[in-house]
Structures are given as structure tokens and as C-alpha cells.
């Protein structure tokens, strides 16, 4: 891989995205986010701020979570990429974290959610038993204007807790009730 490709030149990018080998020929200045969305048809990752601040475009590249709006597609040549579309335990099913997001009420308008879920999954993959502070810090680069933060954090903690108590990927794993933030008072 070279980072000195002249602007305007087309570059060939070979990546493995969600387990599939893909190859595209793109202008060298194209961001990874654009190529994922427009050339590879993976519209799950979203564009919002385009300056790496909001996290809506978060994907995993060779085991690192990145803002794909800030990465040139050419820089990903030869890399393994996971997008939100690749998180499901099996094609079409939800993984435990995705299920927890729904059960904990962490999803509202949904626009931040792909980036949020990818960031959260990466957090758990690298830190299986995070504290509340570590989850907040780890997700502080993912903006949510619906501000479902409390429930998002609860979903991550619930998944961590369930994963620790039961090491399978079964999506029927019980979500610990005390991990759900907020209570209903009448």
C-alpha cells in the first residue's frame, strides 16, 4: 500500500468486507465510507459530520475501530473490514449486543446506531468486562442526538454481564435486569 498516490489517479482496493472478498477501482481521494456505501452497496454505515467527530461512520479495520470518513479507501487495501452489516451472529439474525440494544430501548431514530453498535461491539471485543466509566469513555466518540445514551450504556453493560455469565452466542441469553438504567415510577 502506498500513501503517495497522486490525486485523481484511480487505485485498486482489495478488501475483505464482512468476510467477503471485494475489489473495486476508485479515485485515490475517495474516503472508505463513500466506497463502502456507494461502490460496495453497504449503506449501513452513515455519513454525518465527515470530520471524524460523530462516529456515525464507524467500522472495524484490521481490528481497530475507525471513522471511515477520515480514512482513504486506498489505505484499506489488503485489510479486513467489519461493518454493521457484518455483526449478526448468522446472516439475518441479531448478535447479543444488537438484541440488547433493542431490549434496553437503546434505539430511537436509529441513524447513529450502526456506528454506535460497531463501536460498542469493538469495545466489548477488546474489554469484555468494562466499567460504566469505560463504556462512556469508549462510546464518547459516537454522538446520538436522540440521546439514548443511558440505554445504550445499559445495553453494553447487559451484554457484557450476560456474556460473562454465559459464554455462548445465544441471543436468548437473559439480560440482567439491574443492568438496565432508569426505573419506572408511578
Amino acid at each position, binding site marked *: 500500500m502506498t500513501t503517495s498516490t497522486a490525486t485523481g489517479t484511480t487505485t485498486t482496493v482489495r478488501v475483505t468486507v464482512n468476510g467477503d472478498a471485494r475489489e473495486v477501482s476508485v479515485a485515490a481521494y475517495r474516503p472508505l465510507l463513500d466506497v463502502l456505501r456507494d461502490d460496495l452497496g453497504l*449503506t449501513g454505515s452513515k455519513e454525518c459530520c465527515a470530520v471524524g467527530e460523530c462516529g456515525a461512520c464507524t467500522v472495524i479495520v484490521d481490528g481497530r475501530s475507525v471513522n471511515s470518513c477520515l480514512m482513504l479507501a486506498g489505505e484499506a487495501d489488503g485489510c479486513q473490514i467489519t461493518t454493521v452489516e457484518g455483526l449478526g451472529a448468522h446472516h439475518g439474525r441479531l448478535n447479543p449486543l444488537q438484541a440488547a440494544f433493542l431490549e434496553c430501548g437503546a434505539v430511537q431514530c436509529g441513524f447513529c446506531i450502526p456506528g454506535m453498535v460497531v463501536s460498542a461491539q469493538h469495545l466489548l471485543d477488546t474489554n469484555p468486562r468494562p466499567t460504566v466509566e469505560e463504556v462512556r469513555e469508549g462510546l464518547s466518540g459516537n454522538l446520538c442526538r436522540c440521546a439514548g445514551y443511558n440505554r445504550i450504556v445499559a445495553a453494553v453493560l447487559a451484554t457484557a454481564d450476560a456474556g460473562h455469565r454465559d459464554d455462548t452466542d445465544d441471543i436468548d441469553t437473559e439480560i440482567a435486569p439491574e443492568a438496565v438504567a432508569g426505573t419506572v415510577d408511578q
Partner: protein
Amino acid sequence: MSTATAPPTSGLPAPNLAGTVGAPAPRVGGAERVTGEQQFLADIHLEGLLTVKLVTLDCARARIGAIDTAAARAMPGVVDVITAADLPDPMPRFGPVFADRPILAVGETKYHGEPVAAVVAVDRDTAEQAARAVLVEHEVLPAVLSVATALADDAPLVQEPQLRHKDPLAGTNVLKERRYGWGDVDAQTADLIVENTYTFPMVTHFAIEPHGAIAVADDDGGLTFYSPVQHPYLLQKLMADLFELSLTKVHVLAPDPGGGFGGKQNPKFEPLLAILARRTGRPCRLVLTLEETFQAVRRAAADIHVRTGFTGNGRLVFHDIRSNYLLGAYADIAERVVAKGNYLACGPYRVPAARIRARAVLSHTTPSCAFRGFGTPQINWAVESQLDEGARRLGLDGLTIRLRNLVAKGEDVVPGDVPADGHWEQTVRAAADAVGWHTPLPPGRGRGIACGIKSGATTGLSYSTVRYLYDGSVLVYAGTSDMGQGARTIFAQMAADQLGAPLAKVRVVSGDTSLVPFDLQTSASRSTVFMGNAILRACQDIRTQIGQMAADLYRLDPTQVTVATGTVHLPDREVPLLEVMQRFLGRLRGEVIGNGVYRKRDMPDHPLGGDPAFYEFNCTAFEVEVDRETGEILLHKHVTAGDVGKAINPLQVESQDEGAAIMGLGHSMMEHILLDDNGRIRNLGALDYRIPTTKDVALDLHAVMIENEDGPGPYGAKGVSEGALLCTAPALAAAVTDATGVVIRDLPLTPERVWTHLQLANSEPDRDPGGSDA
């Protein structure tokens, strides 16, 4: 907990609450959102789609000279370039109330980001390059950017007087002045008078989905729009009017917005796209950058002067309010914002006399529009803060003074208007308890509490059609825009409950004006009540028809048949609803179609054109600590309590309340749009405009729902989703004052501002923060 019996819901039988209503049913569309399958506007692919890019100037106000498009047109891949010269003269204008917004700027730009031209190209990169190649000769002109400059005698006029026929204010920058009040303020005697000026900043919605739309020119001369618009039927109507088409020729497809918050209510760029689609013969799509989105929508800023009289024991005697809201260059729905917010300026209290003079003031800035709270957060910031100052001067605490003045259920809020529709004291006490108001306060901390009230929709009209299919599955057609509040979910829950159908067999159809019957709009927290009641009536229509089927089938008089949710009661037995339908329809199958309408009529003599369908009442409380060295506020506890009537889906209500509470932290602590002298927004985009992140949430955020089933909606529901940000700012500021002694009357309470006030207080400890003893 219910302390009141459920009110009659338009004569319907008492609903069966054993169903999913009241339960945290899974969010419809949730799975699609966590997998990335959900199609937002920018994800939609159409054959031949062209990309549009706006050409704008780097200042607020400029005289537009020659526009040279030659270089742009010559670029390979550029399909079209359009300026005002390509549009009719006079320039067509549109808007939800005032038709003042031009399709493209003509003669003069009026705000930073107003489009002067547009390019259409085969892809985004080409469009961006071409937009940069369009050369616009222009002369920067002095811009009106504040209330003070707008009201100065020699202020330039933001809107040409000829656009405001017969308006006595046409020669000023005051779009409208509203006067509300009762009693005789000047005749009142008060033991204490508190007088202050408060400011509320310009802030922007910052939905994570930037704005965008697609227009397609249909072969029959009609238009199709894809727009994540909160009001699809309003967009349809405005485009039909503008392009002189019948409604059948304007088709609006509304993908779920990735956040709306009011900013996506009204059309902005759809007319331009329609013209481009017709000129090019291809679908044209505009997706704004986040920076362009900031330039497109915001909340009205405000300067509010309040003089308040109290008795010696803290009872309110009068409020004398001069409220100036700074709108942008075009009215959008912003005048309504001023009217609605200031009509309830006095809040949920007993106020013997009030004088409210509220002005909507134009400026050369981003058009302000609807934004969650709709004018209430600004006025509430001022009036609730006045209560706290009165309390401090009289030796009372914030809770005591509010309870002393709070109206009881059934008491007038605005004399002669809809009385208080909730046991609001219960909500206040719940918030106080949740924050631990009566427990010892740890050293170095402070507590604050505030109330907020907002009028629900004052008029409205929603239609729903429900189709009960042969296999017992249900289609609910409901035109509400589901932008995160979970409208589709509660509609499914209600229909499932009303027809005794399993939730998994109910599907809600929305977002298509050709398929779905009319809904006025999605705003004012109205949809649970308005569309919910329409759905209930549609289901009742189905039950009535099936009751008649039963009478026919079993050879009974119709009076011998009653239909509850899911079950038909005959004299000698019960038969499931589904079985009756299937037996009656027989081999040919078929379905039963129910229609429901819920309408709240105009009241032309009412100052708001209608009275509130319900009130959203909220009480917010904080416990904070302030770092005196940095001015940072640490939120230990943040409580929001709302009088919700009935939480159809408690998980969704809590999510919305928590979300609104955190959004309220935005304008309270960190958000403000900054302009330079030419009206250029200096902090466009996510790097320089800060919204709350996970790290800004209180250590303990707690949402409380008071459910007395005393609302006009299904199952006694009221509207929710705006309450929790109505009084975030005054509650927080009161907590900061309690912790530090400093009083701050300008938002946001940034660390810099708090620190500066702390320094001033240290250097001038005897300085009177304002107000006087009468």
C-alpha cells in the same frame, strides 16, 4: 398508579388492558436499525439519480451581482446549473404560514448559507467541484444579527416591505407582536419586585441525519418527492400549490427521519429539486453536509425581560414580560413558536395579573423553525429563574415556592382557557423525591428544581384506516412520521389490543401520501393522542361491522350482540372476533376495513386558533457540584418527571424523556451558534459545535412517569417527548446558584461563563445580582 378513573374515550368500550398496551413492546423497525438495513433518505438508490450541490456565499447578507456559470457548465459530468435568472420573475416563494422563502436567493442573500445557485452533476465529487467553479459577484452588506440591531431606527429591513402587504409592521424587522395577559399589572401591589433580563442562545437541531430530499418528475407532469419530512401532507399541499398540480399529481414518500426534532417539519429545498428534476428529466437528490444543515435550521434565540411581583410569603402577584425572539430571515413556522411559547409564559402557576408582550424579530440569520419545546424553553428559562430569585430573596427554597403557587388540577392556567389537566403537584413531588430534595445535601453541592408547561396541539386532524385481514393480521395505515419516538410501535400495540390480534401480526404502513390517508402533521407531541384516537375509532368501526356480521350469522337482533376487544359476546356464548369474520366472509375470504378520524376544530376567537388538547407538564431537578477552578458543572443527579397520562410503551416514553433531558443539557451547558460581524456562522460542524456525549450525561439520570390516565388520548394518554427539556436550564442554573452563590442569566452555562461569574463574585462580593425590594 392511578388516582383517577379513566375518562371516557369517545364512547368506546373500556379497552382490554391485558394486551400489549402499557408494556415495553419491541420497537417496530428496531431490528432494521441495529443491522443497518433501515433505509434513510441518503441510502435510497434510484436509477439515473443526479446529485445537486448548492452554491452559497461566505457571509449573511450580500447584494448579488453577476453569476458566471460557464466554467461549471463546461465540466464533464455537469448536467445543469441554475440561478434565479432561470426561475420565474417574480421569484416564486413558499412557506407554511408566510410565503416568503424564495426558491433561490434573488437580488440579495439574507442568511449565511442561502442558496444563490445550484449545480446538478452525475456524482457528488463533480457537483462539489462545479459548485466551487460558479463565480458569484457580490457586495457584502451590513447584516442585522441581533434583537438590538434589528430594532434600531436605522436598521436595514430583512424582508422587503412589499412582501408584507397590509402589515402595519412591514417597515420594521418585527414580523409580529403578540400581546397576552389578564388582570391589571400596574394596579398590583407586591412586597418584592424582581426584574431581570435573560438571554437564550441560538442553537441548532443537529439531527445525526443531515437534511436531504429527492425529486422525480413524473411522465404525467406530476412530481414525486422522497423527503424525511415530518409533515408529508403539508409538503404535498405546498408543492401542489407552488406547481399548480392537483394533489393526486404530487406523491410524497417519507422515509423515517434520522432525527427531526422539528427541523424537518417544513419544506426547504424540495421546490428547487422539483425544478431541477423537470429540467434534467432525471431524479435529483440533494443531501446537505452537516455544516449546510446547521445553516438551514435552528431554534429562535431570545432576549427576555421580566418584572415579577411577589407577596412576602412567596405568592406570585404579577409577571410583566417583554419577550423578543430572534428569528431568521424567513418566517417558516417561527412566529407560531413565539405565540405558542409566550401564551403560556406564566407557567403552571396562579398569577393574578400578567402582561406579556412577545415579538418575533427578523434577522439576517438561519431561518429559525420548530424545535422540540416550540418556544417554551426560552421563556421558561426567564420566568422560572425569576421564581428562584424571588425564593432566594424571601428565604424560601425552589420547591416550596413552586408548590405554593402551582395550580391544582381543574384550576385556570390562563384565565378562561383549558384548566390544568393533571395533578401536577404529584409530578413535582415525585421529582423532588427522586432527587432527594429533603435529604441532607453533601457539602459543596447544590440542588435546583423547575417546572415547565407546554400546550399540546391546539387543532388537528388525523385519519387512519385499519384493514383486518382474513387471517387475523392487521394493517394500520397511519401517516405519522416515525423519527425515533416510536409512533409505529404504539400504533401496532393499540391495534393489537383493540382487535385482540397478536402484536406480531400487526403491520403499520406510513410514509406514502398515495397509500395512507391524511394526517395533518407530526409535531407538538400530538400523535399518540390524535393518530392514536383515529386508530381506536377505526378499530371500533371494524368491531361494529363484525358485530353486525354476528347478528346476521347467528340470527340475532344487533342489540343482543356486544363486541369487546377480540371477542364477540352473544347471549349464550362468546366467539372470537376472527372466527365471526371468517365465518361470515366464507370461501371468498375478504377483509374488514375500518376508518377513523380524530379532529380538533379551529377556534377562530382563541389567540392560538384553538385551545390545548392537553398540557405537557414536566418537573426537572438537579444535584450538582461546580469545580471552582474550571467552572465545570458535574451532574450528580438529573431527574425528569412528566405527567404522561398513560405510557402506551413505557420503554419508549422513558427513552424519549431521557433523550429530551439530555438534549436540554445542550442549550443549558454547551451549545451556541457563534456569528462574526458579517453574520457568518463561525462554528459550523461537529468539531466546533458541541452537543452532549455519553460523558455529559449525569452520573444518575432518572426519568419518572406519572400515569393517572387522565389524558384525552387512548387509554388516558397525553402527548410526551418535549416535556423533559422545557425546564432543564432554570433547574440547572438554580442548582449552580445553590452550590456557588452566583446567579447567571445567560445561557449556555459554559465552564468559561460559570468561571467568569465566580471570579466576579469573588472580587465584588457585595454586588447586587439584580432586582430590588419594593
